C-alpha cells in the first residue's frame, strides 16, 4: 500500500480501517464497522443521502427494475449475509441493464445489474462484487469523494457526481465521472474479501470474477480495457489486483460457491439476458464471455445458441461455419431454443443451400408458430419453393 496516500487521506475513519485491514490480512479479528446512522440533513453527507433517497424512489417505480419477488429475496439474503450488521440498512434492486455492475449508494440502496447476473458463475462470485460495493459503503467512500472533489475545486463537475450515482443506466458516464480513487478501490477489495470469508464464501472466487471480466474486455480488438471501460479506469492494475486478492484469499481457505443453487435461480432469465448481450453488438467480448461459459457448462444449449447468433451477426471469414457448428451443438442437447433453427435457416439461405434452409425454417415455424417474425420466415420459405 502506498504510504504517501495513507498519510494524505482526508478522512480519519478509513485510516482506522486501513490499519485494521492490515491486521486482518494477518488474521487479527478485524471487525465490520458499526451501522451508519442517518446523517444530519444539513450536512454534506445528509444531502447526498437525501438525493439517493429520491433516486431510489425513481428506481422503485422504474420499468427497468426487475420485479421478481423470489429472485429479489434471494439476492437480498446474499447481501444481508455479507453485510451482517448492515443488513437492515441494505435494500437490493435488480436492474435490467446488460452491463457488469453493482453499486451501493450511501443511503443503503444496492443496485445489481443483469449484466453482472449473467456473468457470475456462482453465488460466491456475486458475493465478491457485492462485498466490494459494501466495502465502499461501510467506509463511506462516496462522501470522501465529494469532499475530495470539492476541496480540489473540480470545475464543471456540476451534477455529474450526484445525478449519476444510483441513476439507472448511465454506466459509462457514471463510472468515468464519479470514480472512486484507486485507494478506495483497494480498500473496497480488502473489505469485500473479508466480508465474503466471514459469510462463508470461497474468497478465491473474488480474483476469478475480476479476471473473467478483464479477459472479456481484453478480447475487444484494439483496446486496453482499462482505457475503454470506465469501470477499470481507477481500479488497481489487473495483475496487482489478482495477486492481492489471491494472497488475501490464501489466508482464509475454504468456503462455498453455491453454484447449483445459483444456476437454478438465474435459469429462468438466462435467455433474456443472453439476448440483451447479443444486442450490445460487442462481438469479440460476447464471444469471449460465451466461450468461457460453454467450457464451464457444455450441456447448456443457451450459451451455444447465443455464440452462434454472435458469429452469424458478425459474419466475418469463417464465422458462418462457426455459427453452424454451434447451432448444431445446441440442437444436439435436445433442449435448444427454437431460434436455433431460424439461425441455421438464415445461414443456409445466404449460402443458397435451399433444401437445408427450407428444412430448418420449417422446423422453426413448427416449434414457434407465433414467433414475431413467423410471417417473414414463411415468406422466405415460399420464395424458395419457386
Amino acid at each position: 500500500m502506498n504510504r504517501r496516500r495513507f498519510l494524505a487521506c482526508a478522512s480519519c475513519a478509513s485510516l482506522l480501517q486501513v490499519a485494521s485491514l492490515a491486521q486482518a490480512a494477518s488474521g487479527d479479528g478485524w471487525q465490520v464497522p458499526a451501522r451508519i446512522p442517518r446523517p444530519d440533513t444539513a450536512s454534506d453527507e445528509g444531502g447526498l443521502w437525501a438525493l439517493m433517497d429520491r433516486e431510489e424512489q425513481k428506481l422503485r417505480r422504474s420499468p427497468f427494475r426487475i420485479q421478481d419477488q423470489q429472485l429479489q429475496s434471494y439476492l437480498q439474503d446474499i447481501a444481508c449475509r455479507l453485510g451482517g450488521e448492515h443488513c437492515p440498512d441494505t435494500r437490493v434492486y435488480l436492474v435490467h441493464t446488460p452491463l457488469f455492475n453493482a453499486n451501493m449508494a450511501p443511503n443503503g440502496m444496492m443496485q445489481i445489474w443483469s449484466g453482472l447476473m449473467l456473468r457470475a458463475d456462482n453465488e460466491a462470485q456475486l458475493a465478491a462484487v457485492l462485498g466490494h460495493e459494501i466495502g465502499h459503503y461501510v467506509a463511506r467512500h462516496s462522501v470522501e469523494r465529494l469532499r475530495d472533489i470539492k476541496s480540489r475545486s473540480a470545475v464543471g463537475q456540476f451534477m455529474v457526481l450526484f445525478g449519476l450515482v444510483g441513476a439507472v443506466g448511465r454506466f459509462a458516464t457514471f463510472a468515468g465521472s464519479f470514480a472512486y480513487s484507486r485507494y478506495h478501490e483497494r480498500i473496497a477489495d480488502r473489505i469485500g474479501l473479508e466480508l465474503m470469508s466471514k459469510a462463508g464464501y470461497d474468497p478465491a472466487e473474488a480474483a476469478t470474477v475480476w479476471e473473467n471480466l478483464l479477459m472479456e474486455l481484453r478480447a475487444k480488438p484494439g483496446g486496453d480495457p482499462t482505457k475503454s471501460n470506465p469501470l477499470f479506469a481507477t481500479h488497481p492494475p489487473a495483475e496487482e489486483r489478482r495477486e492481492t486478492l489471491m494472497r488475501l484469499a490464501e489466508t482464509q481457505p475454504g468456503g462455498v460457491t453455491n453454484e447449483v443453487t445459483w444456476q437454478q435461480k438465474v435459469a429462468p432469465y438466462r435467455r433474456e439476458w443472453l439476448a440483451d448481450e447479443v444486442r450490445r453488438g460487442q462481438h469479440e467480448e460476447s464471444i469471449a464471455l460465451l466461450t468461457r461459459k460453454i467450457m464451464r457448462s457444455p450441456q447448456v444449449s443457451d450459451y451455444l445458441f447465443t455464440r452462434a447468433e454472435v458469429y452469424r451477426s458478425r459474419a466475418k471469414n469463417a464465422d458462418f461455419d462457426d455459427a453452424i457448428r454451434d447451432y448444431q451443438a445446441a440442437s444436439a442437447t435436445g433442449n435448444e431454443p427454437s431460434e436455433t433453427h431460424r439461425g441455421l435457416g438464415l445461414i443456409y439461405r445466404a449460402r443458397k443451400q435451399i433444401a437445408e434452409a427450407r428444412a430448418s425454417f420449417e422446423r422453426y415455424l413448427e416449434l414457434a408458430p407465433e414467433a414475431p417474425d413467423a410471417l417473414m420466415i414463411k415468406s422466405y420459405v415460399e420464395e424458395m419453393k419457386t
Partner: protein
Amino acid sequence: MRKTWVNYRRGLGGRDEEFSFSDRARVVRWHVIRGMRIVRSCIGPALAVPMIIALISMLNVGLVQAQSKNIAFGFTNLPKGTRVVVMPTDIELFSISGGGVAEPKADWTEAAARHFKAALVKKQDSLGVQLSHLNDLDADDLSDINALHAAVARAIALHHFGTSAFNLPTKDGKLDWSMGDSVKVIKEKTGADYALFSWVRDSYASGERVASMVVLTLLGVRGMQGGSQAGYASLVDLNTGAVLWFNRILRRTGDLREEGKAAETLDTLLENFPVTK
C-alpha cells in the same frame, strides 16, 4: 413582465449590476460552452434538459412574454372551486461550492418542498380552486403517466418556450399538446378535474462562492455564475388530457429556502395561471 438583461443579474449582497453588451456576449459564450460540456458529460435528463433549455432561453432574452403563450388555444377560464390535484413536486436545491461543484442540499430541499406546498395552499383562495395533494404511494402507481408528462413538458419547453426557430410549424404558435385518454388514471385515483405538475431545480452560491465572486468582481472579472433557478409548471385537464396552461421559469434570482421568498418563486412559476370564473 418584460425580461431584459438587467433582470439577468446576480446581486452581490443586494448590489445590482448591469451587463454591457460585450459582457452579455461573454456570458452567453460561457454558458454555451458550459452547456456543451454538460451535454457531453451526459448528465441526467432531469437536470440536463432544463439547463439546456435555460441556456437556449438566454438567447431569447428581450422578447415580451405574450399572455397567450402560457394558455392553450381556446381555453379561457377555470370554473370557480374546481378540483385540482397537485402532483408531487419534483424539487431539488443545490449549493455551488467555490470551485463550481453543485452539492445537493437535503435540508434546503426539504424546506423548499414544504414552503412550496404551504405557498400553494395559501394561494388556493386567490387561485379560486380546490387543491388536493397526491401522496407518494399513489404516485407510485402513476409513474407511467408522470414519465409521459415529463416528456411532454420537455417538448413544450423546447418547442414553445425555446428559440422561435425551433417552434413546430404545425402547432401554429399555439400551446397545443394533449395526453388524451391516458390521464384518466389520475382522475380515477383522485376525483379531480385538473392536475398541476411542477418541477424546479435551483442552485445557490455558497458563502465561499459568493466570496470568490466578490473578489473576482473587484478584480474586474464579471459574469461568474452565482446560481440559477429553472423550472416549469403545467395544468392538465383530466377530462381531455390537454395541457391548458404551461409556464417555465429561468432566472438567476429567487429563493426557495425561506418561506416568504419561496412564495415569490411560486408566484413567478404560476404567472398567468388561468383566472377562475
